[in-house]
């Protein structure tokens, strides 16, 4: 039961979904919609697992006074405050007024957005540093990569004079021909990999999701 039933469930539902794609009869559509309706609810509970993990790790850090435990307090405080504002200070649990709460919106607009946006903007500097220190044309392959990168970067540079038009056309051709061929090869490979893995899961060959006994 512990291992057999999940394998049987995966097989039954997997085969049904494949069957449903090719046989869109009214009754199969009805079962399809019924299953989707259930899976949305199951999925929401699964997503909440991540929150529990964060709380557990932060609490553990505070309890055992590990290094930088004070910052874990800030993490839990941020979490607690957003939940408080999101439920409109506990006044609206079962209606969506909390989403319009002044503090909830302002914490998102004026704290979360600036920090997340700025964190990723640091990458601009790291890419400049990497360009300076690490991007070397050590071989033919690296040279090909660098040259195509340079052409794409110079694509719309108006200061290239008469060369500007040819640079734009070359960049456009690079994107629509060799780049397209490369990415298409990767897409086809990924697609075949996904189908193969999905088949292995349905047929019970791939069982890592069951975990250990």
């Amino acid at each position, binding site marked *: 039961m512990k291992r057999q039933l999940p394998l049987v469930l995966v097989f039954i539902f997997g085969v049904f979904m494949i069957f449903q*794609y090719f046989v869109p009869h009214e009754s199969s*559509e009805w079962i*399809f*919609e019924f299953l*989707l*309706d259930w*899976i*949305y609810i199951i*999925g*929401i509970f*699964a*997503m909440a697992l991540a929150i529990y993990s964060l709380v557990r790790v932060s609490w553990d850090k505070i309890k055992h006074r590990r290094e930088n435990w004070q910052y874990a307090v800030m993490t839990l405080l941020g979490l607690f405050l957003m939940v408080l504002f999101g439920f409109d200070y506990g006044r609206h649990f079962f*209606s*969506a007024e909390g*989403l*319009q709460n002044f503090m909830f*919106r302002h914490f*998102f*607009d004026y704290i*979360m*957005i600036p920090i*997340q*946006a700025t*964190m*990723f*903007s640091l990458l*601009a*500097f790291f*890419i*400049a*540093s990497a*360009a*300076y*220190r*690490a*991007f*070397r*044309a*050590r071989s033919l392959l690296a040279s090909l990569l*660098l040259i195509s990168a*340079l052409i*794409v*970067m*110079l694509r*719309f*540079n*108006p*200061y290239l004079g008469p060369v500007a038009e040819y640079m*734009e056309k070359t960049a*456009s051709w690079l*994107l*629509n021909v060799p*780049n*397209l061929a490369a*990415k*298409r090869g*990767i*897409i086809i490979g990924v697609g075949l990999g996904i189908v193969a893995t999905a088949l292995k899961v349905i047929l019970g060959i791939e069982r890592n999701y069951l975990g250990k006994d």
Partner: protein
Amino acid sequence: MNIFDRMMSLDRRWVFLFLALVCVITHVVPFSIPIIITQEAKSIYSFIDTLKEGDIIFMAIDYDPNSLAEMHPMTYAIAEHAFRKKLKIIFTSLSVNGPGMADLAIRDISDSVKIGKTYNGVYYEGREVVNGIDYIFLGYKPYPALVIVGMGQNFRLPFPTDYYGTPLDEHPIMQGVQNYDQIKCVVDISGTSGVDMWITYGQGRYNFPLALGLTGVMAADYYPYLNSGQVFGILGGLLGAAQYEKMADNPGRAVDGMRVQLFAHIVIILFIVMGNVGFLLSRRKARKD
């Protein structure tokens, strides 16, 4: 230690400072650069521009604050263009922090559309866009693939209510709108892998016209779908947003940002060239020795 060896051992914080100074100075100095329109961007603009008053488009705001810089200008440009043409928009968000981004964008665009302006020689009177009549925001659900497939059956299946908790059937915009069959196109503004879900599970199963607004990191990867016809247009990064702003005659953050982009690219290219010149010289020296 020759000059190139000294340059290679330079503290990277000087590189950061140099780039920051170039970007700030370029931003402060007023000048403009031409924005060249590509075919893949033009396709999206032309498609939306030829729609009639009352037509419904679907916009998926699938990005987080980390891609805000490139995606927000696209969202603003496309949504404002659609509202000016009196199209109706169904918004949704299939990324974790996307609902907040969409909520912010809708508030800002609603304010912007209240002001009458002239675009491409045509005067558009300011108007109030009303939730439930001119647009609706469905909200967020996890697992984009399943949500996209569910919406293809009926929008009410994954979204019985909108983001604000009102049942969909209480909104006039959703009268007679069941699924993708009643909408003219889907525009997915995405910084996540959700775009693959839209192509495979959405367009692949329900065959609606799909346009993509992507971050620069992802843009080059989706040209195969453009070529195969699964996608009819791509806006790539800040450049794509600037192109749309130019076509819509609504210059904003993207057109302004492209000026800085230009010089930042020149700086990065200089760094690459300098690094490689130093590398070649030191390799030649090592061979001689």
